[in-house]
């Protein structure tokens, strides 16, 4: 079986455009506090969610927007939720890290690693009430060091639960390079916990789709959990307004207040000169990584999918216009609702 290039493109494009609109609303102060985008991981989400049908469940983390957009949750409901409005998806009570849609069996959590146990519970309920249905857990590679997530892989394998564990590996947890705090190897780790495990280029939606397909079939047939390990990049950093990216993008403004104390710390007392040099080197590396992600370029999954389309440029433009309109409508509806609230 082959994926539909158009369907996948539309999903990724929609998520991208939606998050761009969200970014604008956030910049304009319509959305409070933290906002973690799925930008850069659209291929992973699209390639997985395309297999999700009614009765399947989604266990989400702090980047829950794209999965819900692609699952078909009303865009206006999402934006209104982000804006804290009473007519949002969760009546403005949850916000973007706590999105819940009972109709889609979709639940989020801002606690890193919590999507693992959550998927197991959904899958266990499926075993009882919806045979053949599966649960998907999305999480980052940093979450792989959270005990409850490892426990949940073992539980899924001991109970043969129909869970697809989807690890979106951008190599970073906030500002910490995950390889510096992760021992061994994530694939081996998942296998040591009893899951089937497979490594993927997470910017290639077709590769993800095919691997996901196998995983879904296995799960639906009672073959137990699969771990999909897919690489990606977050061009907008950890969250909107990421402090590191701000430095990279506006070094003069952002560094002003930081440099003096940093230099003072780095030049007086404390550790040895060589240790200090190492620390400063790490800090520079940190900024370097941020600026590299900022220039994502070639690895953009949406761009990558475009050449795969079998439709004409005009047809694609139509498709994009349709999606643009849908996103704009949602934004407009949310802004109207906000205004009505007064």
């Amino acid at each position, binding site marked *: 079986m082959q994926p539909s290039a158009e369907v996948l493109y539309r999903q990724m494009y929609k998520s991208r455009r939606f998050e761009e609109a969200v970014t604008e609303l956030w910049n304009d102060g319509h959305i409070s506090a933290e906002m973690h985008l799925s930008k850069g991981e659209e291929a992973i989400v699209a390639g997985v969610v395309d297999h999700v049908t009614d009765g399947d*469940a989604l*266990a989400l983390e702090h980047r829950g927007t794209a999965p819900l957009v692609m699952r078909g949750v009303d865009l206006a409901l999402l934006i209104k939720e982000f804006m804290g409005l009473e007519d*949002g998806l*969760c*009546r*403005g*009570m*949850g916000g973007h890290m*706590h999105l*819940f849609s*009972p109709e889609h*069996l979709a*639940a989020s*959590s801002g*606690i890193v690693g*919590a999507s*693992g*146990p*959550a*998927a*197991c*519970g*959904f899958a*266990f*309920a*499926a*075993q*009882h*009430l919806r045979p053949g249905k599966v*649960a998907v857990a999305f999480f980052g590679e940093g979450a792989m060091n959270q*005990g*409850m997530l490892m*426990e*949940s892989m*073992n*539980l899924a394998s*001991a*109970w043969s639960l129909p869970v697809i564990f989807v690890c979106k590996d951008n190599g970073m947890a906030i500002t910490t390079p995950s390889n510096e705090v992760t021992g061994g190897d994530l694939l081996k780790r998942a296998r040591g916990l009893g899951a089937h495990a497979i490594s993927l280029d997470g910017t290639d939606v077709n590769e993800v789709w095919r691997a996901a397909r196998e995983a879904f079939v296995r799960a639906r047939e009672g073959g137990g959990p699969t771990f999909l390990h897919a690489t990606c990049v977050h061009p907008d950093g950890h969250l909107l307004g990421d402090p590191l990216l701000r430095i990279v993008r506006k070094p003069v403004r952002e560094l002003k207040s930081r440099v003096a104390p940093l230099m003072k710390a780095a030049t007086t007392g404390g550790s040895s000169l060589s240790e200090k040099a190492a620390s400063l080197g790490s800090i520079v590396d940190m900024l370097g990584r941020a600026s590299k992600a900022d220039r994502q370029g070639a690895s953009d999954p949406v761009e990558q999918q475009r050449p795969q389309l079998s439709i004409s440029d005009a047809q694609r433009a139509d498709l994009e216009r349709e999606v643009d309109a849908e996103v704009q409508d949602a934004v407009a509806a949310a802004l109207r609702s906000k205004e009505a609230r007064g």
Partner: protein
Amino acid sequence: MKTMSFAGAIEDALMKAMSEDPRIVVFGEDVHSIRMNLFAKFGEMRVRSTPISESAFLGAAVTASMAGLRPVVELLMIDFVAVGVDALVNHAAKLEGFSGGRWKAPMVVRASCGGGYGDGGQHEQSLWGWLAQIPGLKVVVPSNPADAGGLMLSAIQDEGPVIYLEHKLLADYWIDGLADGGRTNLDYDIPEAGARGEVPRTWEPIPIGEAKVLRDGNDLTMVSVGVSVHRCLEAATQLAEHGVQAGVIDLRSIAPLDTDAVCRAVERTGRLLVVDEDYKHFSLSGELAAVVMEAGITAQFARVCVEDTIPFDRRREAEALPNVARILEAASGLRA
């Protein structure tokens, strides 16, 4: 008249509920042996052994309940909840709030609690105030077989998460397995009326949040829960011999708290003595003081609680837990 043991009543009520409602599932460590009868009756799929992964299986219980099951998760001892409490504090308790009331987690967490058999401070805690502190969690603590069965039914039927705590001195199999281990040469201060007693012919749910006045008394109101309720009753009997009429209220649930019952009684007696096997500070006893003060009732107040890590040594343990002597002393400290 039908009588049952405390543990028997819970099993009986649970068995009845499971027979009637296929959505009820039991899982946790060692449930094949500690719930052997349920396992024999309902099989592997409904009585399922977990790995020693409290975070994973408590977390799984939350979403399993969200997706249509009615899990009764077993934690062995409530002390172990600390390992997986995020599932309750940040997930089960908050779901209704987060979802704007659109989604709920009808799950029961069942665990033993309490001390009095010499197992040390990491295996004898009560922690009900700790759990009740989080908005969204209900906590029930039965003190006798009839309440144990009736509250179990309500806990299962409740639309939200309920922590169901059974005291180890009341549920005989805990003492048999953890303390006696087949020995007959050790003593425990087991309240007889709590460990075995009358139960209704057929189980009916007992509403969560309704305290029960076990004894009326115009001089003093004792408020308690679990095993300590029986200590209060004993103390009240002794006080009566000295002409002091002490009432005893069994809260039966910590959250929701039956503030009316407490206020009604204290309004009359003007004296509130809280007897609580949980930690003294920032817990149930303090909350009851606040409830009375908020109601504008002027009353004298004292509390008999656990003040520090529970000692292993049974002698010091007995002094650390609420006991009749401590209750009498606290009662005598309340001015006439």
